[in-house]
């Protein structure tokens, strides 16, 4: 395993007269991965990004990016980090081209018209290059923010709610852009409310709640560990109890013995295989059924379940 590109240890942030926004956060980000940070509103996602990007002064802890301690060697680290903020904060009277050129210069890069052209074309902004930003739609403004963040070719890119307020088509377009950035070797950390986004793109997922990292794992492993399959089988005739031959499946009867429900598996195919075995066992036992409804839990189910457990605890 290669060295983490970003390493956070014991990161704490307490706002003046406010709650503890980050509480002893430890997190490592691997080079080249897409890491999705999930959490409810006010969980500390934006504060965490702000602490790494220099917008928030941590109360305690250390942040190391590319081997540089951000408290001391922040210039070298920040030159390689890009940020797309949640808010549509841009100079509305500036043209798209000038706004991107400004970002390139601000991060100490020489003016490179060819690179700006390449970025604008890749984000479908080329025909808007001379337009004032205020004249663009919300989705296009979001693209301008991405273009600005890419102007200095960052190796680590933070996307704070990149698809918030963006229509479905543009959202898919942006997912493609993010995938293309990953292809180019850019490490991406994104926060999102659309859990399907994390499910579709992320290599690893972190769940943050109340300023604490609750869980970090590879998406596949998390779904395997916490994912389940639910199958509801409508029986042709009611059963008084689950027959002995089906006991190993852990299925339960409901609705007067007319519904047989199975919950199990790992979200990675094991559950579906067991449902198939259960159906075969029903047939072998001569128990007829009229329908079979299967549902695999999504990352969202896992996320909601985890947060629910924590809140109940």
């Amino acid at each position: 395993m290669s060295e983490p590109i970003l390493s956070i240890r014991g990161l704490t942030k307490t706002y003046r007269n406010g709650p503890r926004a980050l509480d002893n956060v430890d997190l490592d980000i691997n080079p080249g991965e897409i890491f999705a940070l999930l959490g409810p509103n006010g969980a500390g996602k934006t504060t965490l990004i702000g602490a790494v990007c220099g917008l928030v002064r941590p109360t305690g802890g250390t942040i190391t990016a590319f081997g540089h301690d951000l408290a001391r060697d922040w210039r070298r680290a920040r030159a390689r980090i890009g940020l797309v903020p949640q808010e549509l904060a841009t100079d509305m009277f500036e043209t798209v081209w000038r706004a991107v050129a400004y970002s390139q210069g601000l991060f100490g890069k020489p003016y490179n018209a060819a690179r700006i052209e390449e970025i604008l074309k890749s984000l479908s902004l080329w025909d808007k290059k001379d337009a004032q930003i205020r004249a663009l739609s919300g989705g296009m403004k979001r693209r301008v923010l991405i273009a600005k963040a890419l102007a200095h070719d960052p190796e680590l890119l933070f996307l704070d709610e990149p698809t918030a307020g963006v229509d479905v088509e543009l959202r898919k377009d942006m997912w493609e852009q993010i995938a293309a950035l990953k292809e180019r070797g850019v490490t991406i950390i994104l926060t999102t409310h659309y859990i399907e986004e994390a499910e579709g793109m992320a290599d690893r997922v972190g769940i943050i709640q109340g300023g604490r990292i609750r869980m970090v794992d590879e998406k596949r492993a998390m779904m395997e560990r916490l994912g389940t399959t639910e199958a509801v089988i409508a029986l042709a005739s009611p059963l008084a109890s689950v027959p002995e031959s089906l006991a190993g499946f852990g299925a339960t009867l409901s609705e007067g013995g007319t519904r047989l429900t199975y919950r199990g598996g790992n979200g990675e195919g094991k559950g579906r295989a067991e449902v198939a075995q259960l159906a075969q066992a029903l047939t072998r036992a001569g128990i007829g059924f009229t329908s079979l409804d299967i549902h695999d839990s999504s990352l969202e189910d896992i996320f909601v379940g985890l947060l629910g457990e924590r809140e109940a605890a």
Partner: protein
Amino acid sequence: MHFNPRSGFAIYQREMARAFRTAFQSILSPVLTTSLYFVVFGSVIGARMEPVGGVPYGAFIIPGLLMLTILGETTSNASFGIYMPRFTGTIYELLSAPVGVAETLAGFVGAAATKGLILAAIILATARLFVEYEIAYPLLAAFYIMLVAASFALFGFILGIWADSFEKLGIIPMLILTPLTFLGGTFYSIRDLPQPWDAVALANPIAFLVSGLRYAFYGVSDVPIGLSLGLTLGFLTVCTIIIAVIFRTGWRLRE
């Protein structure tokens, strides 16, 4: 100290572009206002006034009016330059960039000072249309204008970080700088004030600035030029230290 010229130049270029984009407000408007002063006080009323310290009245008021414009405009430009990104949220980019206090000041303060100098040049050229004057020490005048423009651009920068509303942004230039400049000998010599007002007037730091520029223009002043220069350099140093502390602590910049 680490300094990345590209970053500083990017900020400078953007601030200058903003000034030219709003040329009427940032350049034409102050030039027009100052020209009106020249017409009314310099040309019309000035023709009936006695010379002050051997300088015709129309020419006498030029350094004071120049100071009035430079102080007001550089302070407003620099304060607006940093306040707007804070207000709109675009400051995130500056804070997340590998940019320190040196590049930020070179960009914001450099641009505000440049705008002040451009204004001064236009106002001096415009003044020629209404009154006759000769500058005794042109190099000293240019240096002094640059020094004052840079100092008040720094002051404006602090103001822009301190302010948390547009109202506060306008309070200092409108309620403090303008009255102090008017009362700092723009239209009269402090020496001509009756006692104890001549001594009271010297409690006004702007009086030292007006006097210093008047010395560079005509070789006459209310206070020694060394004192004016020392005070301005001291003000510049204090402002620079305050900004360095703001960047170090992140006051009103970083949460």
